């Protein structure tokens, strides 16, 4: 089976979990290999670019710059996807991603991804399901944080 490693990696990402393996194989074929050396930037915060990346091996830091200082807010590892927001919504990159050590990724272009989604709407449904779940989690987290901070505030008063 061709693209076995890629398909396995894709299957482990929440966004593509329910998608048929034959579709994932096509997706993997449409992707392009991108390798980064330690310290190289994959995406830069604020830049407009429309591709998403799937990590095949290695690790990367997610860095957010705010008010002149930058801090690492997360670390990404194998089978994780990043850049999908910019790809789907054409928004500027919300964070910088930097390779820590040798990083192998698969790049997906917006154009190809949209064509694939148009071709296989069931794939789009699976993807939106997973994105909605993520949004729900984020919303709950936000609500929890708000509740926490208001509790802090009230306790402080």
């Amino acid at each position, binding site marked *: 089976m*061709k693209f076995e490693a890629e398909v396995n990696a894709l299957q482990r990402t929440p966004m593509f979990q329910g998608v048929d393996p*034959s579709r994932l194989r*096509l997706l993997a*074929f449409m992707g*392009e*290999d*991108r*390798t980064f050396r330690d310290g190289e930037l994959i995406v830069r915060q604020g830049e407009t670019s429309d591709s998403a990346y799937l990590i095949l091996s290695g690790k990367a830091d997610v860095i957010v710059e705010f008010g002149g200082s930058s801090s690492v807010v997360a670390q990404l590892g194998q089978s994780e996807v990043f850049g999908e927001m910019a790809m789907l919504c054409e928004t500027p990159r919300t964070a910088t991603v930097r390779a820590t050590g040798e990083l192998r990724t698969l790049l997906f272009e917006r154009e190809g991804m949209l*064509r694939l989604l148009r*071709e296989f709407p069931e794939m789009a449904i699976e993807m939106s399901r997973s994105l909605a779940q993520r949004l729900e989690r984020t919303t709950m987290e936000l609500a929890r944080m708000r509740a926490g901070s208001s509790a802090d505030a009230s306790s402080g008063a």
Partner: protein
Amino acid sequence: MAEKMTTFVWRHSARDQMLMLVLTLCSFPIIWISLELPKRIINDAIDGQDFPRELWSFSLGQTDYLIALCAAYLAAITANNAIKYVQNMHRGILGERMLRRMRFDLFRRVMGRPLSRLRSTSPGELVQMISAELAPIGDFIGAIIATPISQGGSFLVYLAFILAQNTYIGLAALALYPVQAWLIPKLQAKVVAMIRDRLANIRAMAREIDESIDAATELRGLRARRWHMAIVSRQLYDNYQIRRRIFILKFLIKFVNNVANHLTPFFIFLIGGYFVIQGKLNIGALTAVLIAYKDLAAPWKELLRFYQDYSDMSARYTSIMENFDEDGEPESLLDRAPVGDHALELKEAPVDGFPAPVSCHAPKGAMTAVVCEDANSRSALLQAMSGLVDDAPRRWSAATPVLYRAAVYVPADPRVFTGSIRSNLLHGLMFQPVERVDNPERVLRGREAQLTGAPEDDTEDNWIDAQEAGYDDLDAVETRMLDLVRRLGMEDDLYMVGLGCRLDMTRQAPLADKLLELRGSIAADPDLAEMRRDFIDVFDADSYAPNASLADNLFFGLPRDPQLRWADFADDRAVQRALDEAGVKVMLVEVGLDLCDTLISLFEGVAADSDLFKRYGLFPRAETPAVEAILRKSKQRGPARLNRSEQARMMGIAFSYCSARYRLGVMRESERVEALLAARPAVRAALKDDPRFAPFDADAYHPAMSIADNIFFGPTRVERRDSWQPFKEKVDALVEERGLRGLILRAGVDQRLGENGIALNALQRRKLGLARALIKHPSAIVLDGLAMSDSGPDQALRALIRDEMDGGAVIWGAASEQGAAQADHVIRVDANGHVSQGCGPASGSDAGSGGVDGGSDAG
């Protein structure tokens, strides 16, 4: 142009037509001789007596006499045909010249139309008239006098002969001609009317097609494609109907003519027979009349055809010329600009959309804003101020008499002409030819132009007057061109274009050498060499570059013709033989088969009309059934049993395969790579002397690769494509350091843009339009739709333009007062189209103090 075709023909080709006439008249005695001689040969030479004969003081025996007459006959025939040859040639040349004259004259008139009228001209209709409709007329008028004379002449000769035999039979033979001469013109008049209908119909169709393509986006947006197709379909039906009726009538005319022609012998037999029986005519004379009558038919037929063509052509001619009736003689082109007191001034000028003639001015060296809410009126006024106004010499004036530098109008979306960036940038300097090139071809073109009433202006001449345009010499123009490109922020784009273009090795060999040196220096520098290894899949005679195509690797070279790819050579005999001898042909077919198999299974379930396959596949989707058939055949009978074209098809697909990009694993780890590398020397040796291919050579500039590919000497590694910016920057610095950047920019400037500059985005087009204007060193620049607000970027752009104008006036259109905040002088147009002007934005809306010229112009 003359109203009637004959007047036009006579006016412009009387001399040539007379020459044709003389040639025709010359041919009559020769024809007579060639008819007379055979009779002499039989009666006099073969059957004759009284030999020897005296001929020009020569005494000739019977055989010699026969030989002499036969030689004379041969000479007569040769002379007759020679005259015909000269006549035909002359007719063709004359027709072509007349055609060129008509075409150019029409184009000249269209170009001279006022802009307002030109906007409502349909290009499709014009093209149809100037190219297709005129063409047969040119062919016809070459012999408009000679044909009736020669055919009519022959007709009369035969007629006279018949009448000479017997008047009654002669009259009988002629009996039906008056009937034909009466009936046929009646029918023909109907045909002519229909020909005019047909032309109008075809023109309407041309206009419709033109419009459908011009408005394609909106048409599709409105989902009205079907409706427009129905319109054209209907027009085609109408065309068919008209043509059908024309056919019916044309063949009816032919029928009448044929019947009449065949009825005549009936009369000849009847009347002639009666006279023979009565003993008033001998049988020999009757036979002679019959033979002569037969000969009479051919010229009559020709005359009839001439008449039909003549009425057809004059109908066409009139129908075309009617469209140009309004044009009259176009105003002669302005040579000099009228000079006034201001940078630009309008005096009582009629402007589209304004209720009254407009007077206003832009002061010298000042920043002038034209404030008008309505974009159309604003554009119209700005165009008028640029001198694009009727009766310009009286209504408009500028600061300099050099017309093309007096004012330049820059729209927001300028037209990019087909050609290179250079030809676009220099377009505004091509005012008139300043220096003739001197070569025989040029002289010939000049003479031909004179003969057809065209101007002698030649595209090969030098059209740029550097001094007049404000430059020291042509080199200074060149320098300024690149300078403007840099200042307007187009340089990086242009540099990219330059890097992507192929050098013309006959003209740019020195640059090629320098680029080759650069390649060497990159390889020699340890840092750069390290980076190059990381980012570039460098071509190496002993290894396989997975980022290049399979064919690039196998042949280790490229086809020289940029239009051709390796796949185009899969069916080439020399290439196939080379591959066969190197022992890789079968393997290549197998690679192609594996690729197709994999691709088809990958794309299983993808709709047939999907563009996914087009983007990511290796062969067009429409060929899938054919490819599947090849796959089946190979599975059943083995790849060796595929026929030549099937094998070539598979090899072509294999040729395009790039393993780093497609990752389809068809190279079977390295097994097939090894085989390809092993075959490479043999393939290279076999095609070494083939001029169609250029091999890779680390020590030579490659003529088929772009400048960038030559510098790096290998494709970028796919997997490192996102990270190679630092390397690229270092190489760019090296390019700059070695003084190559300017040369690459110049190469980019020469690169051809697509049709209408389709490759450029809106911003690039705008910059190009601006650079094209500034390079003229205009004394006033008129901006319509760009730099029109008081936003930072617009202000900066105006400042830059002012800087580049070097004391010239800048005029821009603004939609509101804010846009005029930086102006020294403001021209305001209110909602009613009343024009007022005043100095600076602070003076308010009315014409105020200071620099008001002529006050407000209320209309």
